[in-house]
């Protein structure tokens, strides 16, 4: 049982002249009515998730196995407990993920007893809808957009939860919690709906949909502090481990079957961890000794480089790479 009481002076101040009613609240238990920043963020996210479940016909939660979607899934679990999460989760699978991530995904979905939809980029390629990029720098990151949009359409999903945060990237810092997408899945940053108080407008026509970002106001550090506070398990690759990596464009890429090591690139074993988890072909590792949550928090607190800056080749294409991808319907 959590304890919460009242600081008398504060309540008296808030109540102004209505002091006579004070003893109603007075229960001999003195803690003040304050919420920590993590609890405040948690409550805001739960409120958003419940609004979506109540107002949309077919929501879906996009789950990548990364720490943000793991936290988002936990928040969804909290929002409806003891009932089950009333919507499925969907994984846009590039086929280029780390084994640990698949294991984690399947275990978690089984625990929660919810439906998993896998939309596979490989299937899009096999069916001739998409063409695999060529060359040693080929990545399936870009291809995810079409697979995602097709899957949303196929299943008739009208709301899709994403784990994006505004602190991640400058285009994302301008995006609403409810992000309207037209029938082509496009985001129009110049024509966003005003979003006031905690009143969200999810109205849309058939064929359009809304992306929902319940973690908009969380930072990378908040996510890790929450993982620590809540005892949330994340895939091992987020913690320091030995791995064969090579350097490309200033990033450390893991040697996997999905990337081609080019001439001059020298694979070597280093102690690394992943700050973000995405397509193995464009997600870099960072050198790190952080083997526990607390060590990760210390590392994140001290870092001088953003997580995407350190680890994402996809954002390096140009100044507005993220905005351009988002306009096309990316996460």
């Amino acid at each position: 049982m959590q304890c919460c009481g009242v600081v008398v002076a504060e309540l008296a101040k808030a109540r102004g002249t209505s002091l006579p009613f004070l003893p109603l609240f007075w229960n001999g238990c003195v803690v003040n009515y304050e919420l920590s920043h993590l609890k405040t963020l948690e409550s805001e996210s739960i409120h958003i998730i419940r609004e979506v479940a109540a107002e949309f016909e077919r929501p879906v939660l996009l789950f990548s196995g990364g720490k943000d979607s793991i936290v988002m899934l936990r928040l969804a679990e909290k929002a409806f407990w003891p009932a089950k999460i009333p919507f499925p989760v969907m994984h846009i699978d590039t086929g280029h993920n780390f084994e640990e991530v698949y294991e984690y995904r399947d275990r978690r979905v089984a625990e929660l007893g919810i439906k998993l939809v896998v939309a596979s980029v490989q299937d899009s390629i096999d069916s001739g809808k998409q063409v695999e990029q060529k060359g040693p720098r080929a990545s399936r990151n870009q291809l995810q957009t079409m697979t995602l949009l097709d899957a949303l359409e196929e299943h008739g999903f009208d709301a899709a939860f994403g784990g994006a945060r505004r602190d991640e990237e400058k285009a994302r810092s301008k995006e609403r919690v409810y992000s309207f997408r037209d029938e082509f899945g496009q985001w129009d940053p110049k024509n966003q709906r005003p979003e006031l108080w905690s009143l969200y407008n999810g109205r849309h026509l058939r064929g359009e949909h809304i992306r929902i970002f319940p973690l908009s106001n969380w930072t990378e550090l908040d996510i890790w502090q929450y993982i620590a506070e809540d005892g949330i398990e994340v895939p091992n690759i987020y913690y320091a481990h030995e791995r064969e990596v090579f350097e490309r464009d200033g990033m450390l890429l893991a040697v996997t079957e999905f990337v081609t090591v080019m001439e001059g690139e020298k694979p070597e074993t280093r102690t690394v961890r992943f700050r973000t988890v995405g397509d193995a072909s464009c997600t870099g590792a960072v050198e790190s000794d952080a083997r526990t949550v607390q060590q990760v928090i210390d590392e994140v607190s001290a870092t001088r480089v953003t997580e995407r800056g350190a680890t994402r080749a996809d954002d390096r294409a140009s100044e507005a790479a993220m905005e351009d991808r988002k306009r096309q319907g990316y996460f």
Partner: protein
Amino acid sequence: MSELLRFATAGSVDDGKSTLIGRLLFDSKSIFEDQMASVADASERMGLEGPNLALLTDGLRAEREQGITIDVAYRYFATPKRKFIIADTPGHVQYTRNMVTGASTADLAIVLIDARKGVLEQSRRHAFIASLLRIPHLVIAVNKMDLVDYSEDRFNEIVEEFGSFAAKLDISDLTFIPLSALNGDNVVTRSEHMTWFEGSSLLHHLETVHIASDRNLIDARFPVQCVLRPQTEEFHDYRGYAGRVASGVFRPGDEVMVLPSGFTTKIKRIDTFDGEVDGAFAPMSVTLLLEDEIDISRGDMICRPQNQPTSAQDIDAMVCWLADETVLSAGSKLSIKHTTRTARAIVKNLKYRLDINSLHRDESAETLQLNEMGRVSIRTTLPLFFDEYRRSRETGSFILIDEATNATVGAGMILGET
């Protein structure tokens, strides 16, 4: 335990707002090397002499190309004392729409004034919007003090000039801070150039301003978001009402009333995933379990029998119009969203349009256009359960939605029953 403080900044291109935010972020080590490198890079390509910190927040392609800020940008930083969310609102284009959006959830607003120019029309506008939105704390940052030789007299002139205007507004906490964002005077640390100033630096003020009592802990209001019925073996008869406390405090054993039905019962238990709690207050998301089985659904309001919100269909509100393709006028039919309740509304009449520069009330006005605001009477298809906006931002606010385009076209702050 660190608290969360949300603040909005308002200002125009030239008054140093970006520099100030850049300074706060930089000095709190919240600007990262790769962000700085990309700003330096972009500035150089634009032919600027030094890095333009505005580029940190102006992330959209169009903003960079045109050198303007289009939309509210959110920035995050933390000190050991607090976590901060900045809603950085552009001051010039669509100022009202943007500022209203960014300021609606803010605990504090910073309005920048250029010490050389003094109180401009737009400083008054920003302060007015802050007061209208009931942002509890307002900071007037008198910037560019270095360009007026850190003059105490100049600062006092501005304090006096602004103070006489602010007296006409409803501002509960007003603080003036003289600073130089460029040189860092009174931003993070107190200035050596302005020893005459006895107040604290801006960051110190942000870290210590008392926000806990800004919340309404009196009027217990719980708009029901959804009903949780697990229907599993373990929770066979479970029926929980999920929502976020809008204001006030709820405790197990409290007698409560459900609107619109008017039935009363008692709170049996307050659940969260992490266990039962013995009290829930704003803005906690919880699940209420009641002693009696009552028909309750989304859009209903749980309150206390001796302290109920107003229940009415005829409502007066200050409305800010946010659409550029349509106008508000008598007869406009719209969808209205208030707490978790959605209804339809018709505009009965526009009582006056407010000139936000002069505060003049134009009673002959027949429409509200983009960025205009005025006092409006509406009638709704269903009763809404509301409090005055000045008493509760959560139960006193609504949005208006165009039924044809689905756009959010209006923001309303309730004054009371018509």
